[in-house]
């Protein structure tokens, strides 16, 4: 399932078979994507999956080898970057070092010939919006990483681009700041009605920010859907593993039962049949007293704050990861039994 069903009207951005090759390798391989107005779409994927190339192709910084980019239904072939009216926030911000904060934010307004008085007003407004009121005269070199990120955002927002693109927007920030900013950004974009295309390798960031998540792999789109859909039903083994799930095996599914290396496992009634990858979420691995179910040895336990991740090694089968409450967690070296919960099992593409 490579893409959404195409929606010919109402999509602000549309990619059709977009292909970019570096040497022999395709960084973008016939990508089709639609972003509707006011939608926040997050492209998620490991490094090297073509995410940044996707943004650069839309911005006009990277020419396509095949396919089309359409904005508002108009083909952008031959339209140079500075005339596309899209905004791009770079991964490492790329603030202009020789200008102060105000000069950076005002840059796009100047390029568009906004009168000076209006520029000043708008810069003030934007700096307040990103939580840096009064910072206009500061040197960019003196800003912290989080402040630079806010200035870069204000600069990208200033010319009111019809599409705002963010490349790893929060990548360089520490965790607590990142978590706070994701919430702030989502609220801000909602308030402004901005259409956003962001790329990130961090699933937490993508799920928190996006209306829709697009997972990329090797220049192709592996899955597209709401954060909940993607989380609950990864399209294939790659997506499942990328989301951090380890209990993925090949299984033969017939009649509500799957035959796996871990034995017979119950699956949800609507699961497709045949030989398919099967995902058991850690919460679906239930520990039972030794002697019942699948016999496993505990090889590791990792404290995860809300739960304990327990690594189990069955005889003659791939290891399993289970999640259990702290007080129930067995010690390393213990022998335990394992049973499976059909509600936490998904049969994949």
């Amino acid at each position, binding site marked *: 399932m490579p893409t959404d069903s195409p929606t010919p009207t109402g999509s602000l951005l549309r990619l059709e078979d977009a292909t970019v090759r570096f040497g022999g390798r395709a960084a973008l391989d016939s990508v089709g994507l639609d972003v509707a107005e006011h939608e926040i779409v997050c492209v998620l994927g490991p490094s090297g999956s073509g995410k940044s190339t996707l943004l650069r192709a839309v*911005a*006009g*910084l990277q020419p396509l080898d095949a396919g089309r980019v359409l904005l508002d239904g108009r083909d952008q072939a031959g339209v*140079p*970057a*500075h*005339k*596309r*009216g*899209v*905004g*791009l926030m*770079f991964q*490492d911000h*790329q603030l*202009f*070092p*020789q200008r102060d904060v105000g000069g950076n934010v005002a*840059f*796009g307004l100047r*390029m*568009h010939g906004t009168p000076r008085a209006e520029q000043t007003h708008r810069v003030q407004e934007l700096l307040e919006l990103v939580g840096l009121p009064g910072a206009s005269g500061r040197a960019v070199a003196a800003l912290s990483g989080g402040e630079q990120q806010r200035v870069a955002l204000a*600069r*990208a927002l*200033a*010319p009111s681009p019809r599409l705002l693109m963010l490349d790893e927007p929060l990548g360089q920030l520490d965790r607590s700041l990142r978590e706070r900013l994701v919430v702030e950004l989502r609220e801000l974009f909602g308030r402004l009605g901005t259409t956003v295309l962001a790329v990130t390798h961090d699933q937490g960031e993508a799920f928190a920010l996006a209306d829709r998540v697009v997972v990329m792999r090797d220049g192709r789109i592996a899955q597209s859907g709401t954060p909940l859909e993607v989380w609950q039903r990864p399209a294939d083994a790659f997506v499942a593993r990328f989301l951090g799930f380890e209990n993925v095996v090949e299984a033969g599914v017939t009649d509500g039962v799957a035959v796996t290396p871990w034995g017979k496992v119950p699956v949800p009634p609507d699961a497709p049949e045949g030989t398919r990858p099967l995902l058991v979420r850690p919460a679906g691995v239930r520990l039972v007293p030794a002697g019942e179910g699948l016999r496993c040895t505990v090889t590791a336990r990792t404290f995860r704050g809300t739960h304990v991740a327990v690594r189990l090694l069955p005889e003659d089968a791939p290891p399993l990861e289970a999640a259990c409450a702290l007080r129930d967690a067995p010690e390393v070296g213990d022998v335990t039994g394992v049973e499976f919960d059909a509600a936490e099992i998904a049969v994949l593409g």
Partner: protein
Amino acid sequence: MAVPAAFFAVFFAYPVAAIVARGLKTDGGWQLGRIADVLTQSDIRQVLWFTTWQALVSTALTLVIALPGAYALARFDFPGKQALRAVITVPFVLPTVVVGTAFMALVGRGGLLDALWGVRLDTTVWAILLAHVFFNYAVVVRTVGGLWAQLDPRQEEAARMLGASRFTAWRTVTLPALAPAVAAAALMVFLFTFTSFGVVQILGGPTFSTLEVEIYRQTADLFDLSTAAVLTLIQFVAVGAILALHAWTVRRRETALRLVDASVTARRPRGAGQWALLAGVVATVVVLLLLPLAVLVQRSFGGAGLAYYRALTEADGGVFLVAPIEAIGNSLNYAVAATVIAVVIGGLAAVALTRRDAGRLVRGFDALLMLPLGVSAVTVGFGFLIALDEPPLDLRASWILVPLAQALVGVPFVVRTMLPVLRAVDVRLREAASVLGASPWRAWREVDLPLVRRALLIAAGFAFAVSLGEFGATVFIARPDNPTLPVAVARLLGRPGDLNYGQAMALSTILMIVCAVALLVLERLRTDRTGEF
């Protein structure tokens, strides 16, 4: 790209080709047999041999003396560091004529050493070698030290943590990173000393002669154009080879090194050994670089106070048609014009070379731009006279001829200074400007220009200083009533008598001060270490 290429074709390739053709082409066609003839002459072979070995020894000597200086300035932090760095660079921009004169005053007849201990070196090769070290000390310190200061010390620390001793870490991590820079500096020094003219002309006497001096002698004194043409070709080939090698080492140097801000790598010297090294470097600079200049200044006063300076204001109708002092005005005017030409041509070339889609051809142009540094200035000067004297390019009577020749030598400095800075401008800054709505030209003006403005000023300063000191070409084309400072100094030195000698010293002092002031202004501008010089 087209403008610099045309400039070089008309004002460099054409005159040089013209003079070579004049020497080697007769009615019967090309006289290529002359090449073999000249090469078998024993005195010419003598010159070739001397040119090569003095350049090799000068280069080795410069490296040995300057590398500790490069280290000290890169890794030590001490009071007066800025001043020391500026002092080191002064000799490099000094006109060769001044350098020759200064060493004459130090080690020549009646010089300081002669007066103190009766030691004279002006008849030995040592005077030439020392003057070459004096001249090129800055090349090594700047090229090697500049990189050394930016090498991340944590790379060495990482090696230490993996079990390497202090010396092994230096040998396996720092030295390989430094080697291409050392090679590039050595090649540059070799190039400058191989083509040395003013220094050898003044200090070499009748005994020692480099190719360049011999070309001058054959052209100006003996009017043997065919021998001069052959020698020009030989020098051309040698210089071409050196430049090719240099371009190759520079390219290797550009391979990914982890560079950090120079200001974070320097620290106070620790322990007696490091303080001793620093003291040694300072002592070397004082004795080798400052002493000759101090002697020069002292000689200019002689026993007579300002008499020599006063004499400069009088035309004697003999050596000069005008008062020597007017040479200052001439020099400044010419140098300003030459600087404008060099900055425009060199700037355009550097921008063209930075373009990402620059192909092989354009990158080859990079090395070509360096050629004027090595090709006989004498040939260029004389070539101007015989090539640019008929319509449509009848410039012989025009004042612009001198600045054009001087700009040729200035352009390589402009390109070398601008290129690293232009290349260092992050492409994505330009992209950031373009997604914010800036057209390519606007993005260049808004993003690149502010970042390179400082380098542009520094490049202009170097071009100015080099133009001011240019001697080899100017000596041919400056008209007798419009001499430049170096030409006037050389003429005064060529005359007997204390008064002429004293005036030469006085004029050299003035020239030195003009160059030093220009350089010190530049040092204030240079907060970052830009370029190679």
